[in-house]
């Protein structure tokens, strides 16, 4: 979902930096507090971060004939909320921007906003809405939606920067590329995340009440 280096006009690149920086900074502060507070939480922060690392490195084929990768942010947002997720995502995005030329320095703000902030935020809202009803369903929806909405936001960012005839039409065009490719990947990611959550995280999570 990364917007490539130089592919956002300077004004928009700056705009998304202004959106992302305070949230990442707050997330860094929250993460720092979290890992100092409790050894168990420190381990879970590492697990959530590692999950983002693994999943966002896997470029997978999808039904549309193009490839994309999951985001891995759903697990983190369920465990620690959007701010910590934003910080963890920014680490991965920085790595990919610098060493892989995947994404970019100028588009880092926009990419953090989509993958680290907006997508996980939507997932988190789904988690909160459904967690009383059915916790398993809530985790599943949170992960799938965090993944899918990352790409919806990317499409929106591109549509705003490149409206062509109209923003809406351009939005549809980019959605057709990103969001459609992403639907099956979002479902796969949700299944994998649910497995990790059920088998390895939940015992600790339930015992200690780690929820954000």
């Amino acid at each position, binding site marked *: 979902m990364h917007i490539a*280096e130089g592919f956002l006009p300077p004004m928009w690149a700056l705009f998304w930096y202004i959106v992302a920086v305070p949230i990442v900074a707050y997330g860094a502060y929250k993460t720092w507090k979290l890992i100092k507070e409790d050894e168990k939480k420190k381990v879970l922060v590492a697990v959530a971060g590692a999950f983002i690392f693994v999943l966002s490195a896997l470029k997978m084929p999808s039904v549309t004939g193009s490839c994309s990768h999951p985001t891995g942010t759903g697990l983190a947002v369920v465990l620690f909320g959007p701010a910590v997720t934003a910080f963890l995502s920014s680490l991965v995005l920085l790595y990919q921007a610098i060493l892989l030329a995947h994404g970019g320095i100028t588009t880092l703000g926009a990419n953090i906003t989509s993958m680290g902030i907006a997508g996980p935020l939507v997932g988190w809202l789904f988690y909160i809405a459904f967690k009383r009803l059915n916790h398993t369903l809530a985790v599943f929806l949170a992960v799938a939606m965090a993944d899918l909405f990352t790409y919806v936001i990317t499409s929106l960012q591109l549509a705003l920067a490149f409206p062509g005839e109209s923003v809406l039409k*351009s939005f549809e065009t980019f959605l057709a*590329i990103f969001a459609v490719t992403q639907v099956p990947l979002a479902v796969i990611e949700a299944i994998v995340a649910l*497995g990790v959550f059920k*088998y390895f995280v939940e*015992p600790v999570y339930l015992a200690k009440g780690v929820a954000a």
Partner: protein
Amino acid sequence: MIRILSFLLSLIFIGAVYAEEWAGADELAEEKIAEIDPNYEPWFEPIFEPPSGEIETFFFSLQAAVGAFILGYYIGKKRG
């Protein structure tokens, strides 16, 4: 447990096999940008680009490996 692991492995396998033949959605988006606004020139180039596909794959694998190592360490410790 084994079912989940084999599922994960097959995912990685599928990804590795098709990655070269199927274009990334990112590149498709770049093409669309060129269509919508033919005059747009990227105004900034990546500072460092992996010199070859192999090296790019290396960095992607490294990223996955670091993550997988931490996950594996945690699972191993929990299952002790």
